């Protein structure tokens, strides 16, 4: 039952010993503040860096060719090998683990024109699979489909930034169904995409125009050729061995020396992702060690101060006992006091650290590539608070029991 009188007595004691209470509270406050603040900041760093991936497939593999550096089978070094659609077909035939594959091509282009507006943007030939791999989503209209490829349609899917620039001043910037002129040919805009990556990367992504790969091959007169391709590997397989397998297949097809590292190059996103994940695992570990450490220091501090307080209050306890205080009333007095102080201080620490993180969140905004949405896991915060209260009670228990054993005869002995 809630004993109003007992709490009144505790509040009285706390109110009249402000410094003592403050010192006790400070340790706990700092412990919980550090834990929550560190975790929030760590999470912010993680969100920032991970945000650069957006919804980009983390099991993606980029492959391209470069000049060879080793002579092989009578062929000289320094040869350039062009990837073709046949290579893609061979990969699809040999590697069932490949989930999506998107051969790609640059289309050299001058200014892109719409009405009175014109600007330079990257133009690429793509296939439908791309939308499953890169960090993009269709905001309006549709992406390139199989019919576009088959009929070599003159259509374009443009990034949001392209729309903003070329359709500036037009009503609602409505681009769907309008035409763009690329290298003297008109393309019908059928879709607008946005990037799910944060920061500058996201803006970069949206400055691109996608046209069907077959159309790109036709207009550049490079039938069958591609520049590079990206593919994803089924989640049940590691990317590394397939990365090697694809490269060695391509080396064989293009008569590149098996040991030539330069002839076929690849960029394995999974590996990159794994490294970053490892880094954040390390950061999380440090945050936990430091946070738990300072929390523990806070709790031990409370216990320590409570012990000193009991020593200091020996006389008071002796007087209370002479007035008829039972041992259990002394225990509950000391215990409730310590639990009350730890809880309030911990709660306050939680409040201040969450507030500070919120403040950081608004201050950072969308501006930084490496820090975004610092957040506090409420479960962790509350868990820490519960641990704090329990350990506050446990550390308060020893001094409280000691207090209950104070012998009034000795406590009241006149010095």
């Amino acid at each position, binding site marked *: 039952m809630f004993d109003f009188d007992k709490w*009144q007595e505790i509040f*009285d*004691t706390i109110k009249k010993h402000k410094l003592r209470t403050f010192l006790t509270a400070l340790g706990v406050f700092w412990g919980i503040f550090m834990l929550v603040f560190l975790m929030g900041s760590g999470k912010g760093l993680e969100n920032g860096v991970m945000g650069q991936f957006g919804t980009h497939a983390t099991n993606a593999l980029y492959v391209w060719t470069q000049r060879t550096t080793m002579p092989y089978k009578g062929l000289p070094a320094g040869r350039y090998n062009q990837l073709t659609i046949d290579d893609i077909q061979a990969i699809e035939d040999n590697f069932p683990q490949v989930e999506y594959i998107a051969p790609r091509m640059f289309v050299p282009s001058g200014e892109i024109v719409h009405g009175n507006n014109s600007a330079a943007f990257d133009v690429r030939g793509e296939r439908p699979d791309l939308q499953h791999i890169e960090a993009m989503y269709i905001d309006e209209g549709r992406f390139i489909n199989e019919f576009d490829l088959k009929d070599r349609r003159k259509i374009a899917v443009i990034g949001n930034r392209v729309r903003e620039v070329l359709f500036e001043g037009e009503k609602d910037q409505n681009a769907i169904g309008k035409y763009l002129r690329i290298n003297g040919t008109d393309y019908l805009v059928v879709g607008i995409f946005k990037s799910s990556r944060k920061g500058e990367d996201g803006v970069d992504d949206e400055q691109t125009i996608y046209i069907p790969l077959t159309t790109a091959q036709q207009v550049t007169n490079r039938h069958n050729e591609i520049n590079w391709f990206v593919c994803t590997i089924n989640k049940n397989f590691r990317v590394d061995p397939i990365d090697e397998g694809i490269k060695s297949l391509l080396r064989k097809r293009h008569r590149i020396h098996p040991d030539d590292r330069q002839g076929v190059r690849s960029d394995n996103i999974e590996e990159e992702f794994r490294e970053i994940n490892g880094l954040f695992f390390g950061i999380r570990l440090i945050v936990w060690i430091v946070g738990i450490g300072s929390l523990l220091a806070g709790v031990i501090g409370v216990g320590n101060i409570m012990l000193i307080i009991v020593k200091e209050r020996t006389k008071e306890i002796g*007087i209370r006992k002479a*007035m*008829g205080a*039972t041992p259990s009333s002394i225990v509950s007095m000391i215990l409730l006091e310590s639990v009350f102080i730890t809880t309030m201080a911990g709660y306050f620490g939680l409040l201040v650290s969450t507030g500070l993180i919120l403040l950081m969140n608004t201050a950072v905004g969308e501006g930084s590539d490496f820090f975004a949405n610092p957040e506090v896991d409420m479960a962790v915060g509350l868990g820490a608070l519960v641990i704090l209260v329990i350990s506050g009670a446990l550390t308060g228990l020893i001094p409280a029991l000691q207090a209950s054993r104070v012998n009034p*005869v000795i406590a*009241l002995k*006149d010095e």
Partner: protein
Amino acid sequence: MIELKNIQKSYQTGYTKLEVLKGIDLHIEKGEFVSIMGSSGSGKSTLLNILGILDEYDTGEYRLDGTFINKQLTQKQAAIYRNQFIGFVFQSFNLLNFKTALENVALPLYYQKIDRKQRQKVAMEYLDRVGLRDWADHLPNQLSGGQQQRVAIARSMVARPKIILADEPTGALDSKTSFEVMKLFKEVNDEGITVLVVTHENDISKMTKRIIRLNDGIIGENILLENASTGAS
């Protein structure tokens, strides 16, 4: 009111056993005003601690207001008896220095689980009785020694104890204030409360109605004074 039969108490210090009380037989009636005298080491403080149920005794029998006080009580039971039966007054007052005079007086009532309003009302009554109504909101260090002891006396009376035990209540006071404090004790006694004062000052003990002199752990003298007749019969 108090009945002691062959109370013995010894302390073990190292290898030697120090016998402090060697068989005390004492009978104190309700409403008596008694002083216990003796040189230091005579056992008067130990006797007071046993009477106040702050300390245990080894052998013998102790009855307080007809209740048999077991020689080994649980701490809880001892606390309840102290709260019900006994009011304490100490040489160094032993007021809680972070509580006001009124709060100090009200403390024993807190442990009787009396509600706050009632506590303050009763405490104020007793504070008024010792002439300190106007000082109710003062902290002990804002009061003189005599005033502090009067607060302590009010505190000892507030729970309506059967007996008030005072351990050298005038030891820290000058003679004029000592006289006033003893006068206050006499007024308390006149209301029918048994008062027991431990002192080593002769003129203080002469203001009580009966002097018990302790000598090396036994009762040496037991003197009834003239003014006894003016007290309660």
